[in-house]
């Protein structure tokens, strides 16, 4: 529980320091992307804290490249 509160607090403190200068300069696009990335990051870290398994993209990459990897292994051994 404390870990989640810590994560949310970190996010809030970062936004508190980063967003007001952007509002002053009227950089709306920057604000949207900043908040979006921060929300994705915080969601992922809360999922990790709660011990929920997130499917890793590395497995998909391994699957895509496995024919090529086997081919190279066959040539070189």
């Amino acid at each position, binding site marked *: 529980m404390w870990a989640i509160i810590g994560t949310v607090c970190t996010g809030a403190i970062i936004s508190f320091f980063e967003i007001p200068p952007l509002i002053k300069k009227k950089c709306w696009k920057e604000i949207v992307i900043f908040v979006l990335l921060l929300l994705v990051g915080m969601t992922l870290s809360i999922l990790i804290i709660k011990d929920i398994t997130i499917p890793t993209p590395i497995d998909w990459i*391994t699957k895509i490249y496995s024919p090529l990897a086997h081919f190279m292994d066959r040539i070189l051994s």
Partner: protein
Amino acid sequence: MLEKGKISSGEFLIMVIIFNIGGAILTLPSVLVSLAKQDGWIAYIIATLIGLCFVLLFTRLALLYPSMNYIEVNEKIFGIWIGKISALLFLLYLYYLSSALLSEIGNFFSTQVLVETPMEMIMILFILTSLFGARLGLEVICRTAFFFFPWLVLLLFILFVFLIPDIKFENLQPVFEEGMKPIMRGSYHSLALPYVQLVFFLMITPYVHEKAEMKKNFYLGTILGGGVLFLVIIFSILVLGADNTARLNYPSYKLGMRISIGNFFERVEVIVAFIWVFTEYFKLTICFYGLALGLAQLLGLKNYKILLFPLAFLILTFTIFSHPDIVHYQNFMATAWTPLSLTICFILPLLLLIVGKIRKK
């Protein structure tokens, strides 16, 4: 222009050397020697020669549009949409690279040095330090590397000189025991560890002052960094033997433990850890910086510094969930990592160069 800083070609040279050494110095000897046995050093020479061909490709590409970095060149040559997709693939590769560097740091410290500290804490501290560096910009990173470089040379010198008494030349024999096949296999796998990643420097070549010097220093840095790695590999084989090197996770760390001069100059393995942390820190910082800068250019933002904090969050979480355990990580490194790096860092730039040459005519 998002980055207004300029670096000199000497600083560029040092960044290339550090980028080559970082990340590879601890893990490469074990990977290479487990594939090519005592002929690992021959395999590494072949890999270096191929690596120089990669550098030829990258310098050609850098001098095609000297004032643009890799993301801008992609959009210029491939057009807006295909260019954006190709640049995004490169940025995803950088994202994975940063998280792999971070996880290597976490694994090393939690198994060898700070055994009772949780891995996440070490990674958080490291990424925070990196964040400060990346926030200060390219000039500061390169100049800090410039100041730390003499210490790096000194430590490497201490390591190699004090290992000379422990050399056993019998460990190198027999040469070519199993023919050419294992050697080719070893050099194929070591292509992806330091050399093909040099494509990253296309992100910072536009900010180097002297272009002609830059080209020369790119080659020189690759050769010098490769030379240091070559020494580490051949010393691992000569001092520890091929079997031991292949079995250990961090053979060069073990090399430091072997140093013993007159029973009082001992236990200096922290020297190796120090070299490694230095180089790994600069590699991570420059990758992190390149990732933020590239993403800002891709999305058309006015400031890249705003992206650093969220990206640090994302890199940290990806490090934790991308590889559930170290076996998964080593499995990925042994199979899909080399073809993946070759596609993104060699085939895409090659296509870019061909299309760019045709378009410029």
